[in-house]
């Protein structure tokens, strides 16, 4: 089947005073309906930029340089501004990182939900809109009376659920959740993730979950994509990623996770993530890579497909070790 989301050659740069920072470098990604992808990487690796680029919400001094983001057969990058506005939430929805402050403090929750529907389906009757909002609230395990409440009357977890309810209001084909649980305690985290999981199964939506909590990812997603310096280095199923990661960066990342057999010993990755203003030549990871070869310093590795639908960008598997 054709993937519901196809990203091709997506490139985003930020034009800073110090020069051009390439935050997203020729990224390709496919996602099927009903699939959940976890997008992981260090801070500044381009995860959030990718989410914003998909929503076409990159603000100046940033710019989408090239590429396409196709959702259900429509290329979002080629839409005009008004068409893109209508595509937001109805085709592709974004659940924000800072759910704590993502709701307008002076408007009732209901009014903020009705706003969203009105922006896309202006002719719907008030009663229908209210009903649709109530149903969305119920589907994220909130009571109907939340409709009448203000943001300050809700707990952190409830606010995050409201954001999810808004995200699913118009049954989008793709939902991007940018660290939806980063500000919540672990119990609430789990509840919120289960809510996303259940809603996603009911609607058959494709979900991109952005975060750096590998443990959370392992429990909830089907595939994991690892980003490094604006490039995708490896995309594998959760099982493959955790049992035998292929890219040396992914290997180091998995190895750095604490595990029960090796309690108390923490292993980091030597070195620092490169500045996006000065991405190393060749493979961006080569200065930190324990298995770097000469070719890594000069040539950017292409993404190749390996057994089990895995995508890896590393010379190790094309040049031989």
């Amino acid at each position, binding site marked *: 089947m054709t993937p519901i989301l196809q990203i091709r050659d997506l490139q985003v740069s930020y034009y800073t005073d110090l020069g051009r920072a390439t935050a997203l470098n020729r990224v390709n990604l496919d996602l099927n309906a009903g699939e959940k992808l976890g997008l992981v990487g260090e801070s500044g690796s381009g995860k959030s930029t990718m989410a914003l680029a998909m929503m076409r919400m990159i603000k100046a001094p940033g710019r989408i340089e090239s590429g396409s983001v196709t959702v259900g057969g429509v290329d979002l990058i080629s839409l005009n501004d008004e068409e893109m506005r209508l*595509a937001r939430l109805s085709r592709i929805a*974004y659940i924000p990182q*800072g759910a*704590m402050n*993502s709701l307008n*403090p*002076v408007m009732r929750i209901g009014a903020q939900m009705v706003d*969203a529907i009105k*922006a896309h389906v202006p002719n719907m009757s008030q009663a229908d809109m209210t009903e649709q909002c109530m149903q969305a609230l119920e589907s994220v395990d909130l009571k109907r009376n939340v409709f009448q409440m*203000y943001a300050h009357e809700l707990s952190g977890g409830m606010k995050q659920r409201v954001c999810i309810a808004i995200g699913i209001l118009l049954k989008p084909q793709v939902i991007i959740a940018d660290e939806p649980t980063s500000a919540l305690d672990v119990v609430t985290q789990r509840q919120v993730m289960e809510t996303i999981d259940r809603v996603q199964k009911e609607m058959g939506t494709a979900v991109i979950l952005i975060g750096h909590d590998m443990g959370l990812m392992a429990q909830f997603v089907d595939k994991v994509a690892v980003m490094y310096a604006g490039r995708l280095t490896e995309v594998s199923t959760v099982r493959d990623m955790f049992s035998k990661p292929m890219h040396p960066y992914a290997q180091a990342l998995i190895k750095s996770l604490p595990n029960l057999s090796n309690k108390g010993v923490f292993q980091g990755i030597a070195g620092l993530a490169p500045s996006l203003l000065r991405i190393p030549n060749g493979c961006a990871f080569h200065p930190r890579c324990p298995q770097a070869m000469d070719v890594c310093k000069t040539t950017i590795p292409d993404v190749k497909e390996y057994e089990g639908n895995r995508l890896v960008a590393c010379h190790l598997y094309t040049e031989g070790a």
Partner: protein
Amino acid sequence: MRLRLILRRLAFLLMVVWAASTITFFVPRLSNRNPIRERFAELSRTGGFAAADLEVIVASYNKKFGLDKPLLQQYTDYIGSIARFDLGVSLSRFPMTVTQIIYNSLPWTISLLFVSAILSFLIGNLLGAVAAWPRSPGWLRAVATPFIMFTGVPPVLLAIFLLFFLAFKLKLFPLGQAYSTGTAPDWSFRFVLDIMWHQVLPAISMILGSVGGWVLSMRGMGITIQGEDYVNFAEHKGLDGRTIFRNYYLRNALLPQVTGFALALGSLITSGAVVEGLYALPGLGSKLGEAIRANDFMVIYGIVLFITMSVATLMVLVEFLYPFLDPRIKQE
């Protein structure tokens, strides 16, 4: 709970009124001047009035107005009459009562001060909000800049400047007064238009100087608010720019400005008084100026007390209004 808060606020209001009336009672009496003697001195200056028994007359009037009593008793009488809303009679324009003076001049002050306060609040905040909004067109943002320039200029200076150039030199506007001399006040369309015509320059001098302040504070607020997550999320929801601007951005940025408005009213009245004086508008400010020059303390008391009460009442009103604007503020 609600009732107790209202009572507490009203009690506070009373305290303010009491403090203001006490201060206004004692300050004019610190001077040795006697308004009655001055009134008679003026009469004798202007027209052959023999002042041989001046001291006798002054003493008898002092007795009549109760000015011969001990200060403390005058004070208690005064507070007592305020409690009965009796502001007394003018000493220099006897037998006119202070209430009458306030009643006659109030419409001029309200029309000038309130109209200019509300206009400058609206213009300033809208321009400031637009200036901070990244998607507003460049020319619209530039409109705010000249207003910021006028921020530091006191309304009085602006009033003199406008009066000299636009009214005196270019003769575009009347030189002052509330309406053209020779017309009789009535409610005809022509007369109302004439009044408005006379209010243009005073209003502009009041507005020009205060718009810039609103622009600056609103622009600062706007820059903070547009970075808020909820404004961002509103855009992610696919809302159109106008809705985001109005419901998510402006609504939140305006909250502190409303408080500022209540505070600005107080200082507005003082600068309004001088502008009224310059344009010879028969408003409260001019009357207060006249009363101060004549040391007519009954009128000074009355007007100051009235202004204090109005500002304090407006502040309390704004406070009661606030929970309706910001649901996070609950009155308990």
